[in-house]
């Protein structure tokens, strides 16, 4: 084995070591997909009645395909970001208990996002306090992380972690359904455009 190949082999091994467990990665992806799709479908259902009035089946499928495909893209992107964070940050920050920690991180960010969506005009008006908002956001991310660090080995902590994993596993099944429709959406987009 040449020097280059050896280096590349060492890098790949190092990367594999830094990556969270594949089951955790899957659970986190399922969770990202669930949150993003739940929000997307909630808003899609709001406009669907008016779309049904004016669009035939083919056009309706086409118009729905785009936000679904976008949801898939967003799920992958968010999942990639938290995974990258786990790779880059020290292992005990995110990689350990990755499924639970990353899911909480995404959940808290999602809740913040929902609040901003609902109060967007007010948020724009107070944009000069952006640093303060960002600081509070980071604190809300940090708090669960510290609690997990502190209590993950305690009895209640272990119970909580097990319960979270159980929820993630159930959600993962639901997310397969979302991904199926997303892929269908991507196919529809390809057919309509090429």
């Amino acid at each position, binding site marked *: 084995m040449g020097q280059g190949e050896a280096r590349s082999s060492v890098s790949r091994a190092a990367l594999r070591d830094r990556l969270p467990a594949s089951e955790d990665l899957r659970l986190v992806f399922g969770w990202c997909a669930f949150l993003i799709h739940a929000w997307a479908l909630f*808003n899609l259902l709001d406009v669907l009645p008016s779309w049904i009035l004016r669009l035939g089946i083919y056009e309706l499928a086409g118009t729905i395909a*785009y*936000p679904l495909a976008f*949801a898939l893209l967003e799920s992958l992107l968010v999942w990639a970001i938290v995974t990258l964070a786990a790779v880059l940050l020290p292992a005990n920050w995110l990689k350990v208990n990755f499924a639970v920690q990353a899911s909480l991180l995404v959940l808290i960010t999602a809740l913040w996002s929902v609040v901003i*969506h609902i109060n967007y005009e007010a948020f*724009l008006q107070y944009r000069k306090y952006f640093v303060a908002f960002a600081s509070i956001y980071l604190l809300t991310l940090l708090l669960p992380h510290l609690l997990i660090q502190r209590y993950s080995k305690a009895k209640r902590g272990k119970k909580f972690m097990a319960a979270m994993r159980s929820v993630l596993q159930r959600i993962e099944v639901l997310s397969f359904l979302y991904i199926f429709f997303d892929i269908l959406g991507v196919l529809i987009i390809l057919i309509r455009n090429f």
Partner: protein
Amino acid sequence: MKDSLNRREFLKLAAALPLLKLGASARLVPPEATLSSPPANILILIFDALSARNMSLYGYPRQTTPNMDRFAGRATVYHAHYAAGNYTTPGTASLFTGVYPWSHRALHLHGTMLDDYTLRNFFYLAAPHYYRLGYSHNLLVTTLLYQLRPDLEEFKFGRDLSLADTEYSDRVFPNDYNASFWGEELALRGSSTLPSSLFISQLYRLWQDWRERRVQAQYSKQFPQGLPSNNGVLYNMEKGIDWCTQQLGQLPQPFLAYIHFLPPHHPYNPRKEFVNRFQDDYNPLKKPRHRFAETGATNQFLKQQRQAYDENLAYADSEFGRLYEQLLSQGLLENTCLAITSDHGEMFERGIWGHGTRTLYEPLIRVPMILSQPGQAQRQDVYTPTSNVDLLPSLLHLMGQPVPAWCEGRILPGLDGPASTDSSLSERSIYAMEAKQNAQRGPLKSGTFALIQGRYKLIRYRGYGSASGTGGAKENPDELYDLANDPEELENRNLAEKSLAEELAHELEVKLAEKGTRLA
């Protein structure tokens, strides 16, 4: 074979020589020379939400349209011209297709026409040598133009003449603009709901907000109330008019150009010299609040909105004046038919503001039609009721094309000389409707429908159940107005002229039974 001609044969040939010359001359004459006159360009300018009632041209007390008044001095002015719908989609589709909304079924906000009408519109039917161009500030019209783009030599998206835009669908998915645009709209901007994207839309909206503020700051001195905008696209009329003044003279001729400007449509953000121009003591006639009145639309609010609208209209008219001067100086009006109209009007009365509402009163559906033919020097006035469905047959007539039998419009009177006294034109029924509650291919069970016949106008409210809070047929009786004696539509003559009301209602119902059925 003989080596030489005898005298007789020579004389026969010599006699035939002039015929040869004649034949040669006939081959050399270019085909155009056989036409009586070269084909005229056709320029259709639409000012969105332009109500005839608010134009000084039609007697409004505020001087809102001095430039259009000037243009009217060499045009045919139609005084009882009606839009076919009370908002952009149905109104514009009727302009393109020459049929009422019950036929083309572009009934909904962001709706499209039935596929049949991609082969039944003035772009498709235009004489083949016409260079066809379509442009709109209004994204609802862009949706319709996109449907017709195979028949356009030049199709411009709304953002092509904008100052800033944040759309990507047409760049990424140019072959599927309509569906991808609404997908992008839902995912990133939300529009009638919150954005369906949980995270990325936040970043997008922050970026859109930053960009918009930057552009608004750039133009804040000229536009103190902000730039006009439509679905996140920032624009001003100046850029659109500049493009027209520069490009129209350079287009291949003859051309058929449809250009749809957004002003005076909301937001009423005119250039600074028009702001507060009409802070005067004009008090519009107070009318009783309608049962479809909106909360918050008080008389004071409506008066303020009307003033802002009039100022925006004056701004739009001023920009038209610039274009008009340019067309005159380029001599384009000598070989161009110029038509100015609107897709619908705008209302500021009875507790109702804007358009697309459930009513069809005159401010909402009476729109201008000012049409100047090449070289026309004298004004002509037409008082016969006409409709925007008449535009297609009129344009085809001007292009020397046959008018198809499926067309529901007629050739506008006055195109071939002094306004015709054809009584069939003054007695025919004109229609307008608002039917967005129905499925595109479904029966038209609910909506508001108007029939105008001569001086009378019947308005029928259909299918408004109690769930909407507006009651059924008993709570929504027909309205009959004598527009000659009651132009403000204050006195419902439904009971006083019961037999006429019933006759018109019956005619309307027969038409709805014929046209408003479920489609296969």
